[in-house]
């Protein structure tokens, strides 16, 4: 995940200058009617831009997922930077032959050719030299970008043709998107989606286990090339909208975010496509509402925001759901300890048979385990809320019927497990209590059944004696 976090952070940093410069201009908040106009897609230009960036985001999210799983995320950055000399060269060549240098088709073909060349260079360098991938990526990225900057300079000196505006491919300029551009994006995005669906099996096995795929007879080189060609395609159609510096964020952020939501590749793909599309949609809508904000940067920021949400709340591995789960486990463990303390105290007084009628003082419970009084009070409060516990007039605690049932169950599991450890795992009786403590909380019903059969204790009403002296653990807290 580290690499992806770094990419996302870098994209954020790169997006900030654009926004800061816009903030220097007049930055008025949109009126309600503006908001409605944009969201209902009434305005023709807005409609084109929003549709275009949404489809771009969806396509980038799809192929980006395979790219991420193939561990080639950074390759897309090298590909994007390598398109710059292609754009400049295409402008120069077309202008010299008397054509319109800024014809989009020519520029994008140039970009695609150099993007492919950049990609090929990285793969060839890492295959035929002993350089590691990161070195190959760095070399290609900087060399191609340097070449691109030089060629751009050359293009401005050209007498024929007006090169103004070529710079917009570096940072992107969504507002200039025309209907045919949106069409081009739409057709390409649909193509990417169809190919990803058709080659789902093949891309998956290639990304998961290349050697196995090759042994099966899959042409891994060609499949790899297909995957990377789709990345080049998305990069090239995204150049206009997002720019070559930030396009990597559109390919990496959505799949990285989607992985927090599912462990299933099909769902990760769909989620990633949706997150990408949503970034495109909301990013360009926000930028349409506040025309001074550059759309490319806003799209990336919206994507990063969605990544943050996924990181925090993602149902599969988001931080907060996992914390909650851990907390639930520790609450359960505390409750089991409390119930066992009640039983063991009653047993000491020979009152185990009438557990529910045996009141216990707070101080007695406190001595029973290594917990402090604040912790114990909290656990007791929860036990009362769960109606496992009632407080007598004199402040003594006793278990309810439900509480007694729980306590007997926990004590029984604990002791069965202790006996199992003594008889089957050769653990000394004096040590067995702590070992059992760690395992018993994860026992599920099936495991308990196996344990019962093994220990010949299938009658659930019978509670075994503790295999060790219970008072031995006392005094830990005092």
């Amino acid at each position: 995940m580290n690499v992806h976090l770094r990419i996302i952070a870098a994209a954020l940093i790169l997006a900030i200058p654009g926004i800061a410069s816009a903030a220097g201009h007049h930055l008025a908040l949109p009126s309600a009617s503006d908001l409605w106009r944009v969201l209902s897609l009434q305005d023709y230009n807005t409609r084109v831009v929003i549709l275009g960036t949404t489809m771009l985001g969806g396509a980038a999210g799809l192929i980006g997922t395979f790219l991420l799983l193939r561990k080639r995320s950074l390759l897309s950055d090298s590909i994007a930077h390598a398109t710059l000399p292609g754009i400049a060269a295409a402008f120069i060549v077309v202008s010299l032959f008397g054509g319109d240098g800024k014809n989009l088709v020519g520029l994008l073909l140039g970009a695609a050719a150099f993007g492919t060349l950049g990609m090929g260079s990285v793969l060839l360098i890492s295959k035929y030299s002993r350089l590691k991938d990161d070195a190959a990526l760095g070399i290609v990225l900087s060399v191609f970008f340097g070449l691109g900057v030089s060629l751009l300079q050359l293009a401005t000196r050209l007498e024929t043709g007006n090169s103004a505006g070529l710079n917009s491919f570096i940072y992107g300029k969504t507002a200039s998107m025309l209907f045919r551009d949106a069409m081009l994006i739409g057709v390409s995005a649909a193509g990417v989606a169809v190919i990803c669906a058709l080659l789902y099996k093949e891309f998956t096995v290639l990304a998961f286990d290349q050697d196995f795929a090759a042994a099966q007879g899959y042409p891994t080189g060609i499949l790899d090339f297909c995957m990377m060609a789709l990345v080049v395609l998305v990069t090239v159609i995204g150049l206009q909208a997002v720019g070559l510096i930030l396009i990597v964020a559109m390919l990496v952020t959505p799949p990285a975010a989607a992985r927090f939501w599912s462990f299933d590749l099909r769902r990760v793909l769909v989620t990633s496509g949706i997150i990408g599309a949503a970034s495109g949609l909301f990013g360009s809508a926000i930028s349409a509402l506040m025309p001074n904000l550059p759309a490319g940067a806003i799209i990336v920021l919206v994507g990063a925001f969605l990544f943050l949400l996924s990181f925090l709340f993602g149902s599969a591995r988001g931080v907060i759901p996992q914390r909650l789960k851990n907390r639930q486990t520790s609450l359960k463990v505390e409750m089991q300890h409390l119930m066992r303390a009640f039983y063991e105290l009653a047993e000491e007084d020979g009152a185990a048979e009438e557990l529910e009628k045996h009141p216990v003082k707070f101080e007695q419970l406190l001595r029973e385990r290594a917990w402090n009084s604040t912790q114990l009070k909290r656990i007791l409060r929860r036990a009362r809320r769960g109606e496992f516990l009632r407080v007598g007039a004199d402040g003594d605690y006793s278990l309810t019927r439900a509480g007694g049932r729980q306590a007997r169950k926990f004590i029984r599991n604990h002791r069965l497990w202790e006996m199992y450890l003594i008889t089957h795992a050769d653990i000394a009786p004096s040590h067995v209590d702590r070992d059992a403590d760690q395992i018993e909380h994860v026992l599920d019903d099936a495991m308990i059944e196996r344990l019962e059969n093994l220990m010949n204790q299938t009658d659930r009403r019978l509670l075994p004696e503790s295999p060790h002296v219970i008072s031995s653990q006392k005094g830990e807290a005092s």
Partner: protein
Amino acid sequence: MSLTNTRPEATPLPLSQGEEHSESSPLSIHDMTIAYHRKPVLWDIDLDLPEHHLIGIIGPNGAGKSTLLKSVLGLIPRASGRVLVYGKPFDEQRHRVAYVPQRESVDWDFPVSALDVVLMGRYKRVGWCLPIGRTHKKIAMEALDKVGMADYARRQISQLSGGQQQRIFLARALAQDADLYLMDEPFAGVDAATEKAIIALLKDLKSSGKTVAVVHHDLQTVGSYFDTVILLNMRVVAYGPTAEVFTEENLNKTYGGKLTLLTDAAEALARNQASIHRETKSE
């Protein structure tokens, strides 16, 4: 002459006496040499595997055991030599060969379930671009059942233990329904129970007429696991029935210092940047 390396120090062992490179041999390798970055890792390998056998490939680290499997599968280019699977080139017989790579060779955090991985063994039969049908899913589930992992079919693979992951890899190979199984250290890093389950499975495969070749590390279990062993250290040191070949003398040859001359020669070749291909031909 057919079965063994022709170098004088090799131990000749007639396994399936008779005609040279028999048609029925699941795997015949002829004079194969492999080089990485011009440094030879396998010299003149010449083997005919017997049918219906459980074969152990034994040797020290860097002996080229994994390389032997990979080169048979065409994953590593051969500097020279020829490989036949059941008498035909490997390309025509891929569907009869199942490969189990080393467990560490893949990213187990990949977002797929155990069943998804096993289904990969069916992909080639499903065909390009087509969705996976019910029959294939059934076969994959049966394979999971055979390795005792049917209950874990929907579990994401990162949530499985090392031994369970290894069983998933085996199930994927079983789902291929092959005749020859090539396994790279299936016992590495697995618990004792899994090891027992795996060896029982391999013996089952053998008795149902399959041939299984396994790269193996633990010398103590060689005798009880394999009928045939290949002792490998850059070349075939000895090859034949375990009882005859798995001797202290041969082990010394494989693991001991007797091959330093060969290693030194390989180093020298690498230093000189000479092409192995030419070298082996002019020999």
